[in-house]
């Protein structure tokens, strides 16, 4: 960007540029289909999507508890399900050698997935 287009800026705009790059890199442009690591690339993509859905389910569950629309039994079952889901995700990440930050997605108004 030409400097003459910058009207107001705080001391450093480097930080903003770095942040904007994160948006561009929020999703990989393509799956790495190299025969040696296709499994890893695919696992990363699939687990990212599963983690997104898990987070959404978790968020919705909290809203259900807050709205008092669940019975005690349902709440307990929900806690068990959410906990097991989270544990299972941790296992899968370990199996494929993935860290939390590998499954990150920029979700706009929701912020980063991780």
């Amino acid at each position, binding site marked *: *960007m030409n400097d003459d*287009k*910058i*009207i*107001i*800026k*705080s*001391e*450093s*705009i480097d*930080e*903003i540029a770095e*942040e*904007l790059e*994160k*948006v561009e890199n929020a999703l990989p442009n393509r799956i790495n289909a190299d025969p040696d690591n296709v499994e890893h690339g695919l696992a990363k993509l699939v687990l990212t999507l599963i983690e997104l859905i898990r987070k959404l389910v*978790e*968020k919705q*569950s*909290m809203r259900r*508890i*807050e709205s*008092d629309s*669940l*019975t*005690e039994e349902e*709440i*307990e079952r*929900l*806690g*068990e399900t*959410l*906990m097991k889901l989270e544990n299972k995700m941790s296992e899968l990440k370990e199996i494929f050698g993935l860290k939390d930050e590998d499954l990150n997605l*920029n979700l*706009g*108004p*929701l*912020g*980063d997935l991780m």
Partner: protein
Amino acid sequence: MKEYKCIYAILDSDVKSSDHKPEIMGLDSSPVYFVGFRDISAAVSNVNQDKMKVSSDIAFSYEKIIEDLWMKYNLLPMRFGSVMKNDTNVIEIMKKNYSDFIDNLKKVENKSEFGLEILCDLNKTDFKTDNTFNLNNYKKLKQLDKNSVYRNYLIDKLKQHKSEDSFMKKIDDIIEEIHSPLKKLSYLSNVTKMVTTKIILNATYLVKNDMKDEFIQTTQQIKREKKDLKFLLTGPWPPYNFVNLSIK
């Protein structure tokens, strides 16, 4: 190498006559010229296919050409990579989309676009969110067996959820304080919240040219008041983010 017509913009003036030459060079060092249809025109130049490869240098050159045209004419910028086989195809595009082009040209006439990014370093900002959690508000959860791991797991999750909600409410309040006065000074605006965990606001404003100074001064005033936030206001730009049409 096959040659194409690169379209930079649609203009609302009938400039197809030889009296009007933009005297601007296109991407492939070929002069930009106008192709007219009724009272609108397309600014085009000849390009070789390999000149349309995506790179930041070419994208900046493309933007500069649009910018130079915008200094002289009211226009709708075309998306980078808009190419047609020949002038006849360019005329066909204008013919099929004429009314949409006219509507959009009227909308952006005598207006400029400004971009605003607001960055908040949450580690440095004194951000007082509501972290109070009262289990008494969740009677059914409270009544579960205290030794249940699931009960304790849900309590931790609820605390986290409440904290996140409180955080988002604070962010919404800050955004409202910034966006509300600027929205009043603009003709149209687009706002995206929390583009990343640091960029809390990414907004574009379409501002009437006679309101530009007031818009900039107001932004400066807001910046002075919000010392914890980082501001980047850019412009004036051609109306990149305020053209709504699907080319037929």
